[in-house]
């Protein structure tokens, strides 16, 4: 029996597509020239080359430090600004920056390094928790963005929590001080060493007070040169009681879906296993009977196990079964994240229409500019850019919005 995968004929046509002519002779000549130029240098030449290389390296390192932008790496290799990052269900994700800063995403967190600059970087926390030890340098400029909040840092140790579902934000400062901008905190609110600021957006409350525990354990562990401690042994950076601090949306033990086998596997970060169990139970049944939260989690499981069609089914089902809910709007946002630019724009627009002040509104507004521009809708992109700047003049997409409005991106 021959198994035919969808589109096989198309890929076969690509495979058999005629290879265009190639100037073999010219390429060969270039290669041989290069080869001939690599003659073995004499010992004296080696010495001269080594001395010259040392001088050049010293100059280059000095110049590089002065002018190059910060870079970062994860366990998977060099990181790129704009790439979405997700820690496992039970494991940390440490980010190591070239100038010495350490940022650790706690289990179940999602975010991205939004921008890299010479003076620092911006980290966008979509959900969950990060802890950081920011190296103090002259003119250091680090920003942590979480929903409508922005934390500006010049050198400190801190932790940031953001739960978009509950719209609860917290920042805790262990060293130095930070400035927080966002709803209910004043413009800007300075949080100093030993203090924490907790904001509950729906209740319109902000509490600034002494920090109730010491240390930001994840970042400390890395700063000392060691690996992050096993998450099972790690103390929580924030107390769980008293409901003053947000519980990360993806933290283990949250009620949604935890009763199901696939939900438990998802909590452990075993997305392949969770998906396999979900399919054995019956995706149709899960889609039919799950809560909105469970559907969003199923979408995440499908995405992280590489089943984008199922992710889409779960998100579309969430919207169909729970129309008008905040979760349906989140599903629209997630659909935008995984769609082509033209379609993405309509999903981000949908989110903004349904949740104009929602936790993801600023990010959706920015992504709307990106997707319209990428889809070639210049007029729509300008319109989105103007609305973004009117509402978020200091937001992470503000530079892009200005470029779009001035036509500098064209």
């Amino acid at each position, binding site marked *: 029996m021959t198994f*035919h*995968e*969808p*589109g*096989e*004929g*198309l*890929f*076969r*046509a*690509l*495979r058999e*597509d*005629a*290879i*265009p002519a*190639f*100037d*073999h002779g*010219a*390429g*060969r000549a*270039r*290669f*041989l020239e*290069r*080869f*001939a130029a*690599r*003659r*073995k240098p004499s010992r004296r030449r080696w010495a001269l080359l080594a001395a010259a290389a040392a001088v050049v390296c010293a100059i280059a390192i000095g110049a590089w430090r002065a002018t190059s932008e910060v870079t970062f790496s994860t366990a*998977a290799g060099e990181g790129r600004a*704009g790439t979405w990052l997700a820690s496992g269900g039970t494991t940390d994700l440490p980010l190591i920056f070239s100038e010495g800063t350490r940022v650790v995403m706690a289990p179940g967190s999602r975010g991205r390094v939004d921008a890299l600059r010479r003076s620092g970087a911006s980290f966008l926390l979509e959900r969950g928790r990060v802890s950081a030890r920011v190296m103090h340098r002259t003119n250091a400029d680090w920003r942590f963005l979480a929903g409508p909040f922005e934390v500006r840092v010049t050198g400190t140790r801190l932790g940031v929590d953001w739960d978009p579902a509950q719209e609860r934000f917290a920042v805790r400062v262990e060293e130095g001080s930070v400035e927080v901008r966002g709803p209910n905190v004043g413009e800007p609110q300075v949080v100093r060493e030993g203090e924490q600021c907790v904001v509950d957006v729906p209740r319109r409350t902000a509490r600034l007070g002494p920090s109730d525990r010491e240390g930001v354990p994840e970042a400390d562990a890395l700063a000392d040169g060691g690996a992050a401690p096993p998450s099972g042994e790690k103390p929580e950076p924030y107390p769980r009681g008293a409901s003053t601090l947000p519980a990360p949306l993806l933290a283990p033990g949250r009620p949604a879906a935890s009763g199901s086998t696939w939900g438990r596997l998802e909590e452990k970060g075993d997305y392949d296993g969770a998906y396999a169990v979900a399919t054995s139970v019956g995706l149709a049944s899960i889609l039919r009977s799950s809560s909105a939260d469970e559907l969003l989690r199923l979408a995440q499981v499908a995405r*992280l*196990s*590489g*089943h*984008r*069609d199922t992710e889409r089914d779960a998100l579309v089902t969430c919207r169909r079964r729970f129309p008008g809910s905040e979760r349906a709007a989140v599903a629209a946002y997630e659909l935008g994240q*995984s*769609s*082509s630019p033209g379609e993405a724009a309509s999903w981000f627009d949908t989110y903004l229409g349904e949740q104009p002040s929602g936790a993801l509104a600023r990010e959706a507004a920015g992504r709307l500019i990106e997707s319209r*521009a*990428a889809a070639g809708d210049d007029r729509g992109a300008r319109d989105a850019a103007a609305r973004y700047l009117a509402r978020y003049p200091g937001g992470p997409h503000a530079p*892009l919005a200005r*470029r*779009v409005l001035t036509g*500098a*991106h*064209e």
Partner: protein
Amino acid sequence: MTARRRQPADARAPRPSYGVVRALPFDGDEAALVAAMRGGRADAAAAFYDRHAPSVHALVFRLMGPDAEIDDVVNDVFVRALESMSRLRDPGALRSWVYGITVRTVAIRFQKRSRQRWLRFMSPEDVPEVVAPAVSGELGEALREVHAILHGMDPDERIALLLHRVEGLSLEGAAEAAGTSVSTYRRRLARGEAKFFARAKSRPALDSWLGEGGS
């Protein structure tokens, strides 16, 4: 040995037949070829290029599609191979080593383009010139649509898709060529396939190709 020395121009003619020395093509296996190149033998370098350039060029074409920079990328592949030849641990695996360098060189070129596109926010001049495939008719139209979709995809996902579905590599082989873990590669492949088919469904010219096995 004197016969090997280049003669002054005025001494070349008349040339006695017994004074002509022609370099025979390098005839060793891959390991011998690597050893000879490391020893600086130009005939081995020429043989290296002759043996591998056609397959490198074909692979670059399949990964990049019609593209004005194909020859430039092929040149980059051989420059990288030359620079890292001293680090090749298993000279007998020269072919797969060159394959991996080719995949990574294409990936680097895509990433470079992405960065430039971001810096200038996708200005039209950043988009590489796309040369229309020579094939005409329905097949040519389908291939043009496919290349257009591929050009709009994330570079890593595009390469993951092509290595598996077009090059026919196993997940393990493709992951090795792409320099990633199998799980990372599998995720890229899944995303690449999902995006590719989602976009292909919106293109009428590909309707008849998207069924089971295509047409």
